[in-house]
């Protein structure tokens, strides 16, 4: 009897994990299919395009598969300035967005905790700009910040700016636009981690002789780090590839062109697909390297 019991129970124990992994696989299938179809295939196609060479004796925009590694050399020598500018703008704009978003998220997530209605309202206000098209909002800023617009003309009238000063088309305007457009992506993840913050830890900090600043640095900030990290990633990555804010038609000028603008013009104007593809891949690699360094650093770094 006892042996019989063991014999029947053994296969059950063994098969349980296997069955579970089958279920897991089944559930993952749509995700895997999606990734394969919409990420892997385009990526491979992009890599192949980036090595293409012009088909001899044809018009503009006709290319054939080759292994033209010189495309990358050309991109590096011609567009490294745009590359660096993109990353620089992205870093500065992300930092600005963080400086603006953290206090805002803290206010909504912690200070307004006792007033759920106000909290919900403030959150809605953070998201509200999304109801208007990204392009329209940026165009509106162009109007507001233009030389004849209310901001600049007022500053000029107050003699805080010279009569020939202008703002649109400068790096400052582009960075402003980038930071502005991506602030909700920074605020929401930080809000989510601050909203969960257990204030008893903050109390414990102050009980253990830590000043409010010290408590913020040693307790609040590390505990909200997940939100800060995802917020900066959600902001930094799209900003690096942005081609709207920096374009002539919006807040930028030819001096502020970012990689996104170059890719756009290579693709649509010059129809130089291999160069556009190589630029995209270099941008992707640069972001990947920077982000992985950042994630590793912020993961292990002792913020205390």
């Amino acid at each position, binding site marked *: 009897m006892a042996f019989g019991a063991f014999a029947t129970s053994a296969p059950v124990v063994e098969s349980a994990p296997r069955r579970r992994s089958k279920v897991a696989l089944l559930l993952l299938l749509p995700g895997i299919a999606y990734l394969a179809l919409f990420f892997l295939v385009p990526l491979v196609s992009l890599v192949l395009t980036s090595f293409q060479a012009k088909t001899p004796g044809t018009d503009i925009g006709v290319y054939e598969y080759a292994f033209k590694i010189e495309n990358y050399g050309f991109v590096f020598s011609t567009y490294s300035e745009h590359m660096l500018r993109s990353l620089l703008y992205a870093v500065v704009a992300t930092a600005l967005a963080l400086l603006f978003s953290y206090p805002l998220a803290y206010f909504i997530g912690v200070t307004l905790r006792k007033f759920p209605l106000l909290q919900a309202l403030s959150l809605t206000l953070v998201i509200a700009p999304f109801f208007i098209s990204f392009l329209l909002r940026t165009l509106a800023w162009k109007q507001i910040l233009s030389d004849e617009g209310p901001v600049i003309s007022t500053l000029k009238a107050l003699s805080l700016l010279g009569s020939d000063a202008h703002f649109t088309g400068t790096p400052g305007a582009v960075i402003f636009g980038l930071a502005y457009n991506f602030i909700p992506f920074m605020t929401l993840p930080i809000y989510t981690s601050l909203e969960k913050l257990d204030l008893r830890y903050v109390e414990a*900090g102050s*009980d253990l002789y830590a000043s409010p600043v010290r408590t913020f640095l040693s307790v609040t900030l590390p505990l909200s780090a997940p939100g800060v990290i995802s917020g900066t990633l959600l902001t930094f990555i799209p900003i690096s590839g942005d081609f709207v804010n920096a374009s002539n038609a919006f807040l930028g000028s030819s001096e502020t062109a970012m990689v996104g603008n170059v890719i756009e013009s290579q693709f649509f104007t010059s129809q130089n697909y291999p160069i556009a593809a190589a630029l995209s891949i270099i941008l992707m690699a640069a972001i990947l390297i920077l982000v992985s360094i950042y994630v590793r650093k912020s993961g292990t770094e002792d913020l205390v």
Partner: protein
Amino acid sequence: MAGGFAEAGADLELVGITKRFPGFTAIEELNLTIPAGSFFALLGPSGCGKTTTLRLVAGLEDPTAGRILIGGKDVTTTKPYQRPVNTVFQSYALFPHMTVLENVAFGLKRRRIADPLGKAHEALRLVELDHVAQRKPAQLSGGQQQRVALARAVVNRPALLLLDEPLGALDLKLRRQMQIELKDIQSDVGLTFLHVTHDQEEAMTMADTVAVMNKGQIEQMGAPEELYELPKTAFVANFLGQSNLFTGTVTNSGKESIIVDVAGTKIEVPRERAQRHAGEVTIGVRPEKLMLHTSAPKPTPGTNVIGPGRVNDVSFSGVSTQYSVTVPKLGNVIVFAQNMVFGPVVNDGAEVWLAWTVDHGFGLLDDPADGPRFEPDTDTKSIAVQRREKLEEELEEA
């Protein structure tokens, strides 16, 4: 900021402290003085305002009215981090992103005390947790977390240490051991401890002074023996151990004692042990002071006798046996008898008389017309937790 370790404890004085939350008064006109270097225990039912009192002293809550003085200095408006006070939180509040060692060293580092890690290790050894110094709090058991919380506060050697049920999650053996450690630390340096506990035995054995709190007020305060032997209110009489209480009218108020007529039975109480000397009064006696007799004892001066009654329950609990006796018109009376012989002295259903020395009786301050006041009305804990704690308390008492 308080620099360095405290040389000695500081006294704590609460003057007319009132704390009102929106729509709820948690503390009402609380006056309390705890002398430097004493071990003060605060006992009371759940929700009576113990944690709130500690939070007020730590500065985590602002009083609605009143003043708080630590070591003679008014700290009412001082920020928590500037007070020479540390707290062992009821919820531990260990920093989840720091290791156990970093948690314990936190306060020392903030005050720039030399060798914070060495001292933190020492404190962890004290609570027998040095081997988990590198773990995160989430990787510890509840009792281990509680001991880390204890170490994190004690390591700072503050002039005033606030302990909010610091040993509640520990088993009996470990709890006894930690009690001894705590008492040693306290008496070595002469620190002042304000200790909140649900465990009466813990309060009685450790504290110099015990205060029983009820509904935001101190009901009675004094040395443990005094509180136990001479409770002043029905709440204290029932909260600290058990009591048999009777209500009657004073028929004779003499110089030495008063005589109370309880449903026809005359009971004598020493005058200085009675809070009220006329009218309707409540008197009481502890169950272990009662003696069982199987025949009516001869009335002798200095002894009260009630009965006959009938034993309706006998429960054996090791060192003693608890008898429940129904006395007509007086109600149920509990008797604890030492187990001097094998088996119960009397059996279920037996007819008995109960006697006690007059000197053991006490008279209460409560007006019987007000009714009993010992049901806590509000609570900070979930019902399940309360129920479990109540069960545990009952088990412990048994």
